[in-house]
């Protein structure tokens, strides 16, 4: 079966519309996931026993279940409890809840990679734990956290394709729509793959160059 590039070209505006949904959903989810992930990560490390346990349970529960499950629960199950989300917010909330757990672990490992001596030096100047976090540990963490965060961003772009299960017209869903309409089950998917790569490759490249700078 040959790739019908003419068809891809013809349907490109339609596919790009789907890619815009994919991209905007990724960005919105990522912003919430990063903020929540930072908070969860800090509570996990410094929140004491109770908050530490709660956040640990959350992180492990999310990491041990498929993201798709979370999306289906939020979109199909929560309305029964009176929580009605439209498609986009439902998808964004699910993905943010899911990625916040991953990102919490990113922050935790970054903080743990800062040598103990940095905290000791901060304490020896009379700083409180909060001050040493604010002025010494976190500023050093943010550099180390950027490359893995960029990787999470690229992974999230791909995972947004799960929203096809709740009939959101993202890039993957629209390429399947083209397939259904033209009986070409190959070319539109190739087109979608190329558009995904255009989005993810630069980010992964950027992440690698950041990693080199950090070293």
């Amino acid at each position, binding site marked *: 079966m040959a790739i019908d590039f003419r068809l891809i070209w013809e349907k490109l505006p339609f596919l790009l519309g789907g890619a815009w949904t994919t991209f905007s959903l990724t960005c919105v989810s990522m912003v919430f996931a990063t903020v929540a992930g930072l908070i969860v990560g800090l509570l996990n490390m410094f929140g004491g026993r109770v908050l530490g346990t709660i956040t640990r349970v959350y992180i492990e529960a999310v990491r041990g279940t498929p993201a798709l499950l979370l999306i289906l629960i939020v979109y199909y199950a929560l309305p029964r409890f009176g929580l009605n989300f439209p498609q986009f917010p439902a998808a964004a909330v699910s993905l943010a809840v899911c990625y916040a757990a991953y990102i919490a672990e990113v922050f935790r490992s970054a903080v743990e990679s800062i*040598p103990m*001596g940095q905290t000791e030096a901060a304490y*020896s*100047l*009379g*700083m*409180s734990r909060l*001050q040493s976090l604010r*002025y010494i540990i976190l500023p*050093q963490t943010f550099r180390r956290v950027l490359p893995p965060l960029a990787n999470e961003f690229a992974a999230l772009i791909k995972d947004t394709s799960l929203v096809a299960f709740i009939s959101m017209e993202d890039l993957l869903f629209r390429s399947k729509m083209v397939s259904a309409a033209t009986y070409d089950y190959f070319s539109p998917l190739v087109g979608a793959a190329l558009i995904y790569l255009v989005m993810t490759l630069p980010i992964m490249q950027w992440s690698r160059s950041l990693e080199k700078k950090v070293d």
Partner: protein
Amino acid sequence: MADEKTCSTGRILDVVDLHKSFGTLEVIKGVSFGLDHKERLVLMGPSGSGKSTLVRCLNWIEPPTSGRIVFDGQEVQAGACDIRKLREDIGMVFQQFNVFPHLTALQNVALGPIVVKKLPRADAEAEARELLAKVGLAHRADHKPGQMSGGEQQRVAIARALAMHPKLMLFDEPTSSIDVELIREVLDVMVKLADEGMTMIVVTHEMGFAKEVADRVIFMDRGLIIETGTPAEVFEHPQQERTQNFLSKVHLA
């Protein structure tokens, strides 16, 4: 002002029967000593003797397991006194420098006064420049630690500790991680501090420095003080066999 007053009282530090265990391992097994204002004490001993742990206990970076510490007339007890206030008054210089890599030399020195003492930034930075000049690093003020040699980083660390105007300076093997040819520049700064009347406790194997600066040498082994005296007494007429053994090895090195 306040310094002059406390100075006349003589004593700055009393350590009584200090113990420190990590789990079941007892690293310090009952150490007592005192320190007067402006006194320079050198702590020596083989690795694993507990000397580093001892100085780390003094500012509560390692909380002692039991025993008393009285600093500047105040009993130090976690909870019963403000450990942070104590740390403001005790400067510490680490073996691994522990300078802040994301900050310039100037910011490293100014940060403590700005954050802890709430000094205005301009004042703190002006004083930080003076301190960097004092340790011979005026020209490196805007460099980050990554661009500096070990000797330079350690001098930044000394300036950083001095910026808090400590009443006592602790040095935990300050030259052990520094290239041989750069050790002198760090020791010179420490000698200068001693000459200005800084009260200091120095963990070091630098015999030359000890002879030049120390009022008293304490020799530790296996968590206990086994010998104490002036540098001349301890180095030239060590009473204990373990001290003699250790000194002969250091002399060879």
